[in-house]
């Protein structure tokens, strides 16, 4: 195994995770845009939005098809990325998508206090709707739902077949204030402190654009 040529991006670390949620079909355009601006790496996953339009709500369609893009950037190009997202993807206008910055461990500066935070809730498949209902009761809306697979039980074998449990991930941006209450509620109602009941984690956010709630657009 030749490890002399092994290079990793952690040797030249990106210090910001730029997460974006856009309409299905625009993920590639957004990834290419961010790569053009200098993003070190970008990946895209299919997702579902949970805020339907009034028309879709009347038709009983609760979810909309979305794509979630994770791009890893250096903070030096953050401003240029946001300008491009506003100009070319129109993320500064409501309804075109959202983007927000999560500092990585290599972020060189002390984190500035913002009103927002991101939450990542991972539960078994089928429990995502229950989580969204709980969040709705706490007036936290606008989560993005992703399908995922668990890794903890991957080595389990049943009748010679490997078992890979399906999971659902809810990814959302919310004001920081109600998040401790959200975690407590998830713990009480879904017993998350018990093994194999799911996890919920929150991250600091330094900047966001295009959020659903009024007054949160832009920096």
């Amino acid at each position, binding site marked *: 195994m030749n490890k002399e040529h092994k290079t990793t991006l952690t040797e030249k670390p990106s210090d910001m995770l730029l997460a974006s949620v856009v309409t299905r079909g625009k993920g590639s355009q957004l990834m290419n845009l961010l790569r053009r601006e200098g*993003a070190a790496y970008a990946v895209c996953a299919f997702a579902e939005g949970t805020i339907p339009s009034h028309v879709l709500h009347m038709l009983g369609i609760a979810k909309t098809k979305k794509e979630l893009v994770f791009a890893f950037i250096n903070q030096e190009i953050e401003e240029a990325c946001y300008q491009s997202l506003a100009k070319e993807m129109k993320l500064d206008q409501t309804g075109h998508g959202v983007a927000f910055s999560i500092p990585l461990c290599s972020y060189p500066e002390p984190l500035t206090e913002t009103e927002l935070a991101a939450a990542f809730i991972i539960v078994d498949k089928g429990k995502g709707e229950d989580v969204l209902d709980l969040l709705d009761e706490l007036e936290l809306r606008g989560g993005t739902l992703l399908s995922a697979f668990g890794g903890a039980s991957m080595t389990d074998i049943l009748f010679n077949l490997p078992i890979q449990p399906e999971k659902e991930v809810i990814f959302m941006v919310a004001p920081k204030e109600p998040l401790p209450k959200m975690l407590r509620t998830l*713990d009480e109602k879904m017993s998350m402190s018990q093994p194999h009941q799911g996890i919920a*984690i929150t991250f600091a956010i330094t900047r966001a654009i295009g959020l659903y709630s009024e007054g949160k657009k832009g920096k």
Partner: protein
Amino acid sequence: MEKRMLMISVPLGKAERVVQLANQAGASGATILHTREALAEPKSFQLEPQRDLVLIVTNLEFQKSIEESIRGGFEQAIKIYCVPIFDSVGLEHGGKTISE
């Protein structure tokens, strides 16, 4: 206790190996997202390779050993990014870390 989330991007199908290596180094689980990656030089017609994005939430003390274990188990370069966790619930059996 300080916690981190590792985001590890590997070619499609390699996630199981990542999870095995991480578990050997002290991780207690992982979540895998199927994604596709953007090429460095976009063209008018392009194929986007599929990737597995493995998310591993771990304590700070295991972070380095997990990263080293994963890098040591692959011949090619592995992209590993680390995100600091602000607050959490459900990461330890019976352990709560909800801040008041």
